[in-house]
Structures are given as C-alpha cells and as structure tokens.
C-alpha cells in the first residue's frame, strides 16, 4: 500500500451492537501508530438500537474529508450479509468487499412489507466480482463469542492495509477490554491465516 500517493478508504458497515465502531477504532489506531494521518467518521446515537451503522476510515499522508467520497471505498467490511448490498455502491471499481455470513433480519421484515433478500451474497456477487465472503459467524461461534465477527473481518482485511501484525496486536491490547484481549488475538490470528491461504 503506497500511502505517499494514495489515501486508503475503508468503509465498515453493520448493524447497531455488532462492534462496527470498535473495528474502525482499531483500524484508526493501527494507522496512527504506523505514523500516518487518519480520519474516521460515523454517526452515533442509534448505534445500540438495531439501526444501520457505518463507519468511514481514511488513511494517508494528509487526509481532509472524514467521509469517503461516494464510489471510492477501496475496502468495504460488512458485518452483515444484506448490509453489504446496501453499501456496495460505495465500492471503488477495483475495491474489495469483505462480507460476513452473519444474517440479521429486522423485525420490520416479519410483516412481509419489505423483504430481507433470500441470498444477499449471491446478489452481491452479481454486482461485483471482488467479493470475499467469510464465514465469520461460524468462526466467532466456534471461538465462543459472536462479537468476534468484527476482529475476524479486520484480520481478513489486514493484508490489504499493509500494516504489521505486531501493530494490530498492540492496538487490540490497547483498545479491547482486558478480559477479551486473548480471545480477540486468537480470532485475529485464525482469521489472518484465512487470507494468506
């Protein structure tokens, strides 16, 4: 990643309560610790109320706008299948969208007025060739905590950011609650191995 000449735009999306904000916090911390300028932006308020949550992170030599210009996200991390569909138009032509297997059907979809898509990932793949789908839901459950989806997706994205694993590790130790540090480090290591393969 050539940060001298390019700003890296990462859009993280999900549903309130999934840990979107912690993920963008970790990524920003890693960028700052690597000596780069970083801005991140999201809107709080409804974040614990099951609404859509999105966080923009921009990393470079000098960053102005805290929000990503539309259609210029280099990486989208989606913590939920259908939210990836909602976000996909933000993707740059050669950008990658990393999507978790997690499905969260809102109560409003119980009434059939608006339908949750049957297979959001299949639809996503029709829209762009650059889909990386990760069964983060299963991996998180196997590790014993569904809230690890955020760390898993970050780990999958990490090679594209060019930051050192040790910097990620330090950021996790700094920002994650002490009793969850070990399990998050484990999730990060396991999920990083996925991308290398």
């Amino acid at each position, binding site marked *: 990643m050539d940060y001298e000449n390019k700003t890296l735009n990462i859009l993280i999306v999900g549903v309130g309560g999934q840990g979107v904000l912690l993920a963008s*916090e970790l990524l*920003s911390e890693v960028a700052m610790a690597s000596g780069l300028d*970083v801005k*991140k932006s999201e809107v709080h308020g*409804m974040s614990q109320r099951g609404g859509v949550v999105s966080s923009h992170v921009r990393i470079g030599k000098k960053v102005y706008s*805290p929000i990503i*210009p539309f259609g210029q996200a280099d990486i989208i991390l989606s913590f939920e299948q259908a*939210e990836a*569909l909602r976000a996909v138009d933000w993707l740059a032509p050669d950008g990658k969208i990393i999507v978790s297997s997690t499905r969260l059907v809102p109560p409003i*979809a119980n009434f059939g007025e608006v339908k949750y898509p049957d297979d959001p990932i299949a639809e996503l793949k029709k829209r762009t060739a650059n889909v990386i789908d990760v069964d983060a839901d299963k991996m998180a459950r196997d590790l014993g905590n569904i809230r690890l989806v955020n760390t898993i997706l970050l780990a999958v994205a990490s090679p594209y950011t060019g930051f050192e694993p040790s910097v990620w590790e330090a950021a996790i130790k700094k920002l994650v609650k002490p009793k969850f540090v070990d399990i998050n480090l484990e999730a990060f290591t396991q999920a990083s191995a996925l991308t290398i393969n």
Partner: protein
Amino acid sequence: MTRLLSGNEAVARGAFEAGVKLAAAYPGTPSTEILETIADEYKSIYAEWSPNEKVAFEVGVGASLGGGRTLVAMKHVGVNVAADPLMTFAYTGVNAGFVLISADDPEMHSSQNEQDNRIFAKFAQIPFLEPSDSQEAKDFIRIGLDISEEFDIPVMVRMTTRVSHSKGVVELGEPVTVEKDQFDRNVRKYVMVPGHAKLRHTSLLERQARLAEYVEKSPLNRIEENGSKVGIITGGISYQYVKEVAPDLDVFKIGIGFPLPLKKIKEFVDRHEKILVVEELEPYYEEIIRAAGMISVEGKKYTGREGELSPYRVATSLAKAGVVNKVDLADYKPAQLFPRPPVLCPGCPHRGLFAVLKKLRLTVTGDIGCYTLGTLDPLQSLHTCICMGASIGNAIGMEKVNGSKQGIVAILGDSTFLHSGITGLLDAVYNRANITIIIADNRITAMTGGQQNPATGYTLMGKPTREVDFVKLAEALGAESVRSVDPLNYEETQKVIKEEVERPGVSVVVTNRPCVLMPKRIMDTPYEVDLELCNGCSLCFRLGCPAIMPSKELNKRGKPKAEIDATLCTGCTLCAQVCKPEAIVIKETAGAAK
C-alpha cells in the same frame, strides 16, 4: 504527543489545557461525549449534568462571574432552552472566560430539526468559532476563552455532528492555570434592570466594534492561495470537503464566523473572477457578505440548504456553478433495500407500555427519548414529538379543544420529565386538565447512551446523591392520582392505564423498570418458541422485538411461525405474556410440560 480524538473528546481536552474549572451540560446528541470525557479523563474540572440546558448555562454564568474559566455544552436545540440567559449574558459579559458549545446536527441524524445556530450567535451578538476538525476543536477552546476574557463576552464554539463525531490525529498541549479575581459585586454590570441594561447594551455594541477589528487580523480567518481565478469562502466541515474535491482552488477559510472579517473578505472577493460560498444549512455567510455589498457572491443556489454536505455534494455544486469541468465521482444513488430503522432493544421496558397503548388505541402525545421509537411500525402508538417536555402541554391543549373523551395520554421519560415536564404537570393540575401522564422511568437518560440524572442517585462525577421520587413529586404538584406500575407486566399495565384514562382529572402513571442496557446489561434466561404449539398468529411479531424472527416453519395459512434468537432474548417475558397458545417458553419448562 499525539492522540486520536473525536471532535468532542478534543473539546474536552481543550477545556483541560485552557484551565477550565467548571463544565456543565445536559446530554444531547451530538454533544454528549464532551462532558463524559471531561468527567472520565480531566478530573481537575468540576463537571455536572444539569437538569436542562438553561440550568447548565446559568451554572456556567455563575462560575464565570465567580472567577473560573467555564465550558457549557449542549446540542443545537438545547441552545433554544438556554436562550434566555444567553441573550442577556451577552450584555453583562464575563469575569473568567466562558465558552458555549453548540453541537448542531445537520441531516438530523438524531434530532427533531436542523436549525443553524450560527444565526443564534449573530442574534445574541456573541462571537462564534467554527472548527473543521479535531485539532481545531481543541485549539479553538483556548482561543475562544481568551477572546471571551479580552472582549468581556461569552463565546460560542459551533460544532456539527460530523466534526463532533469524527476522529482525527490531535497534537496535545500542556495545561495552563488561569487565575481570575473572584466575584466583583458590580451591580451596574451584573444586575440587568433597565437602567443598567441600557448601559450594557451600549457596551455590547462597543465590544462588537472592537471584535470587528480583531477578526480582521485573527489567523483563524485564513487565506490559502493557489493562484486560481475562482475563490471559495468556506468554514467548518465544508472546508474539508472543498479541500478534498478541489485542492487547487483559492480558499478563504473562516474560523471566526461572527463577526465576519468583511474587509479581508472584500479583498479576497476583489482578487477573484468568481466567488462561491460553500456552507451547510442556511446561507449565513452568503447573506452577510452579499449584504456588505459583494453581490456577485453565490452559494446556496448550488449547494442547497438542507442536510449535510459531502465530498459528493460539494463536487456536484462546484460543477453546477461551472467552477470545475466535470465531477470525477460516481452518481450517488441510495441502495434499493429494506429499511432497518432503529428499534426498541430486546427486553426494553418501553415495549410493554407501547403494546398496551396500542391495544387501548389511545391518542399519545410524545416526547424526546428512546420511547419516541414507539411511533414506528409495528407499535405505532406515539402521535406527536416536538421538543423536550412538550408532551404534557400538547396533551393539555388537545384535551381543552377536544374534550376529555378522547383518552389523551402524554408520555415522557424520567430525564425528559425533569428537564422540562415538571412545569407541564403543574399546568395540567393548575388548569384542571383531564389527561393521563406516563413517566416512563427507566432510571437512566437512555437515548443519549446512559447518563445519570437527578433520579438515578449518582452525579456525572460518580458521587452518590439524593434521587427524585417521581410519585412524591407528582403528588406534591397536585396530581389527583399517582400510580406506579411494572411496564413488563402486560395485564397490570393495561388495567392501570385503562383505569387512569377513565378517571377525570390529572393522573400520573410512573413505570418502574430500569433500562435493559444501562447502567448494567440485564440478561435473564432466554425464551424459545415451541413450534408445535405456535400457530403463526403473529401477535408476538407485533411487539417489534428484534429477538423474534420468522421461522422457516409455516402455519396452515402459509404464514411463518415465530423463532427467538437466544443470543438477543433477555427473557423479559413480554412475548410469552401475549402468546395465546402459550408457545413461548423457557427450554426446561418446555421439557417439563411434555
């Protein structure tokens, strides 16, 4: 040393570095984290949640007069509540520096309107500073306090959601200590009876004249020259978007938005063939600049006056104005997908209350808080929401013109009632209204993320304190009937509300279940659906609980049966109470029953 700080965290840091002694606020998105950060990190500052913004402001006035540097924070609509002391404090002026943070919410991410409080500063004739990122947010607090002391005037720092909630790298500084004289009993300055106020009005105008000179020289109003024929005048977050999409244009960056440096702006305008003002919301800069005779200046014609700007909106505005040739960005189109509106949390005590209000088909005047979500599908049982505390007055007025038969209920939360509902209840009692007021007391200020208030027993700084007793308070104000009820007891809540709605006079019902998330997460044994018993009647779906989802199994009419997500269910029992075939059970019980 650098740290990654949000705009709000940077404001808190700025207060610390500038030697602020007192900070007061009422929580409100997007301003809340300012006082939370001060209380968490900068314990040398006395910090309080006041019951409302007016009180916070008045506490701040007292602190400033008493000789301590002061910061008062609120969201944009909070300034409406604090407007009374604000307008007159401009007359008296300060002793130690006083900064008012107005956190505006363009786009209404979490607000009932998107008023532009830059106009408020002009109205009150106080200077305002407009940071465009976290570094400036921190730096402008100290500069604002210095201006406040130099010109004997309160200063507003105008934030917006995008600045408050974005994070950026901030260079930290060392804190200073500022010692001011204690309160001086100068009644001609501080007792605003007409004879004194006339003199202070004259003084305010004199101070304005001196400020007008000062802003011409301030480095906060900065020109960035690139030799372009077109010049952009901008400030706040809009500056960042301009730099993002048109880095080669000459920019006049406004840091102090009132009074404007009109001489410096005129020179900038005269040097360019075309000038565009890029600002969010109202044509505030544009109108002042045009009124000063620079009538060729344009702006709102291209940018629009609703919602937030963005790199995309600024780029398209510049293209429309013919400033740039083409927009190098994809066309924005919102995704065509099901909506995911915010919902009451699984286990939320308000859900029981709204299920009852829906069942009883009552007219409900609403208020500001999590319970405002009761207006959404499927609960759909809240019918007005205007401003903090409005529910009670609205109910009184409605009842007075419609008569009492309608069954009018006002609903507001614990913190909202204490903010500005007490006087409403007093009015209902005094003027003999026939309404029922529900105080949805969940023991926390929930919507803004869980702040203490006068009913929770703790202060912002974590000290135990006395807590308001809503039942006693309502009785003391003269309500004829005051009852307490568990909102997750469906039958009982229905009975109590029905009786009180039928009773003439003013009734107050206080619900008594704490918030399921704060201060601590409440998790009981989750329930599950016995699919053999479930008949797919959808009564549980109609509670709008995120933990209840359609199962793949269908009933005879092809409708889905219910399924409960055990990771989300808090075991609140409400769905089990409304389930007629008793299909919603705790797992062990299910086994035992068979």
